Structures are given as C-alpha cells and as structure tokens.
C-alpha cells in the first residue's frame, strides 16, 4: 500500500514538473519526458508489474494533456515499464554508463512503439518540434540515470546513518 501511495505522490510531482517545464518553454517537454523517468525508476526499483501499472497511469495522464486519441502514450509507457523491469533484473545496470545506455535503448523502444501506434491510429504527420523529439530518448535517459544514482546514494547514506 505504501508503495502505491508513494508512486501516486511521485506521479503527481511529475505532473507538476511537466506543467512547470511547459511554462518555461514550449519545447521543453519534447526534449525531456518526466513521465518516462518515473516509469523507468519504478520499473527498475519495483519490477516489471509495478512498472507496467505506473506506465499505464503515466501514459494515460500524458494522453489527457493532448487532443485526440486517449491511450496511445498509455500503451507505449506500459510496455516501457514492463520490459524495463524485466530486462533490468537479468543484466547488470548498476554502473552509470551501462545504466545510461540501457535507458537510451528502452526509451528508443518506447518512442518507436509510440510512433507506430500514432501513425497506425491517428494517421497524421508526426510533429517532431524541429527534431527535438528525436533527442528525447537521450536527454531523458541521462536524467533518469542521474535520478536513479542520486536516489541510491541518498538511500545508502540514510542506511549508514541508521546503523
């Protein structure tokens, strides 16, 4: 229960951050997807099922901020959460560089799934915000890896302090 409440709180913070970045610049959300960071974090920390649920929640929230079909980002992020959780258990992604590379691959996978469903269902020309959309996996992966490392460091310090 505590985990679900915590994830709800983190998703709410992600929504506020997303809206704040949008106010800073129109282009910011195209470069950095805060919802994907949340999905990756929970998938790595809590496993594939938790990742899939978080992905669905984050994706549907992201879809509610767009005009048009509801569920496109939802499916892409559900798959991102599930496969990130599943693969991260089987390979070592603790070193920073490996973590960044792994996140980049997973986010490119998410972008491809999203583009595929978008073109299939909506059938419109994809808006790339002057190409910024293609940089999104790289920027998001970097910030996600920094976040994971930072959270681990804080947790280590906390456990040392308790001991």
């Amino acid at each position, binding site marked *: 229960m505590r985990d679900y409440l915590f994830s709800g709180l983190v998703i709410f913070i992600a*929504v*506020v951050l*997303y*809206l*704040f970045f*949008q*106010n*800073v610049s*129109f282009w910011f*959300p195209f470069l950095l997807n805060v919802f994907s960071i949340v999905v990756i974090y929970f998938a790595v920390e809590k496993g*594939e*099922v938790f990742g*899939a*649920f978080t992905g*669905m929640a984050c*994706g*549907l*929230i*992201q*879809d*509610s*901020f*767009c*005009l*048009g*079909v*509801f*569920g*496109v980002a*939802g*499916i892409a992020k*559900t*798959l991102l959460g*599930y496969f990130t959780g*599943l693969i991260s258990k089987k390979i070592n992604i603790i070193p920073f560089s490996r973590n960044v590379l792994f996140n980049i691959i997973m986010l490119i996978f998410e972008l491809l799934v999203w583009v595929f469903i978008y073109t299939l*269902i909506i059938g*419109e*020309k994809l*808006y790339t*915000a002057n190409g910024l959309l293609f940089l999104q996996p790289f920027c998001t992966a970097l910030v996600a890896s920094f976040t994971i490392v930072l959270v681990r460091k804080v947790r280590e310090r906390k456990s040392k302090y308790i001991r």
Partner: protein
Amino acid sequence: MPSFLKKKKNLTILLSLVLIQMILISIQAPLGEEESFFKKMLLSVFIPVQDGVAYFFHGSNKFWRNYFFLHGIQVKNNLLQEKYFLLKHENELLRKALKKYQAEKEVEDIFKQAHKKIIAARIIGLDARNIFKSININKGSADGVKKDMVVLDLNSNLVGRIITVTLRGARIQLLTDNDAGVSVSSEENKSIGVLSGSGSGLCQVNYILNTDKNLDIGNIIITTGYDEIYPPGIRVGEIISIENLPSLFKMIIVKPYFNLSHSKRLAVIGVTAAEFY
C-alpha cells in the same frame, strides 16, 4: 485460473493492461471529436493543477518584472497610454455614430451586452503531442463557457473554438489543427473555401478551383459564417502561397494571424453558434 496463466502471471497482467487500453482506444472511435468520459475526468482533475502551476509561474515572473527588472517599462507605459487614448476616442466616435440610428438607452444596452458576452481567459497549458493542435484555458462551464464557443486573441483574430469543457477549464481546438475546419473567403473577393490546419503552424484553404483567378498572395482571409460555428467577418490570416495542382483545386497556404507567444490572454465569445444565428 488456468495453469498456463499462473505460470505466466506477469505476462498476463501486461496483456490485460494493453487490452484495457486498446478497448479505451476503440471506445473513442464512434465518439469522433467528442472526448471520452475517462479522459474528461482526468482533464477535470488536472486542469486546476495546470491552472495553479501557470498562476505560480506567471505570478513569480510578474513579480520579478514589476519589482526588479523594470527595463523598458516607461516605453511600454507610454505606448499603452497612447493606445488607450486612441481607443477611447474611437469608442466615443462609434457611440456617436450609433446614436444617429438608435436611442441613447438602446446604445448603452448594446455596449453592456457586448461587454457581458466576452469571457476573458488565460492559457494554462499546451498540447503535449503537438503545440499547434490544442490549448487549455482557465475558464470552464462555471464561468459560462460552452462547447463550440469561438475564441479570439487580443487583436480579435480567430484562434479556434471550444471543444471540451470542464467545470474550471476548457480545451480549445486551434485553427492549425489538422482536424479543424472553417468556412472562409478572401476579404477582397468572395471565393469561398474550407480552411484547415496543417499541424505545423500554417493552414490551407481547400476546395478553391484552379480556374479561380481572384486570389492573390497577401489577400486577407476572413470567416464567412457558413459553417454555423464561426460568426462571419473574423480575421483569420493572410495567403502566403498559391499553387495550381494537377487536380481540380488550388493549394493555398495561409499564415494565421494569431500568435500565442505574444500574449497568454484570450477572449471567448460567450455566444454559441445556435444563439448567434
């Protein structure tokens, strides 16, 4: 639960989640432009958050500009005073002109009615997928906003129409959206076409025959009112290119006049199409 589902429990959960979302997508197909109940519910929850964040951001920005960063304020103030002076005199002249035809009380009533019919709104969010598709504003059904009301910018140029309304906010479909459609004509002559967005900040006017020689680059495009959504005579944009295609119709590209980066303020015309006609 069958044994193969127990063995692949996680995969079954994933497939169920994907299936739920596929059903959500398929439910929307018969709704057309109408947004699903679940989406409207999420929008109702997040519009106050969106408004709060936008209010905080603009408040702190305003605080910085009004109390610390005062560069250019004097020039801006002088320009506004000059504009106010001109508008005040224009208003007086129009009142006098109107009085020639109607009694004073009737003129006052017209002005009062016109004032009541404008709902001032502020942009609180942009479309996450494409910034040229839709925007969210901070006025909803509680403020009298209804579906299909027309939205103008500060210079009375057409921005779009209200497509979804929640209690405290609404979503506007911009002219530049691919699915937008407005009956338009040129201000100079009356060649009528249908304007739709290209999803990249520009619009195109469709269904004008290749044989029509009346249109030129630089012509101003206005609404005709034939679509029974947008009142006639609202300025939309300017023709920037005309090309004859091998098909029957011309390819006419229009640059819309509205520019949301200049101001976050919008005017919702508080009369629906049905009331207007």
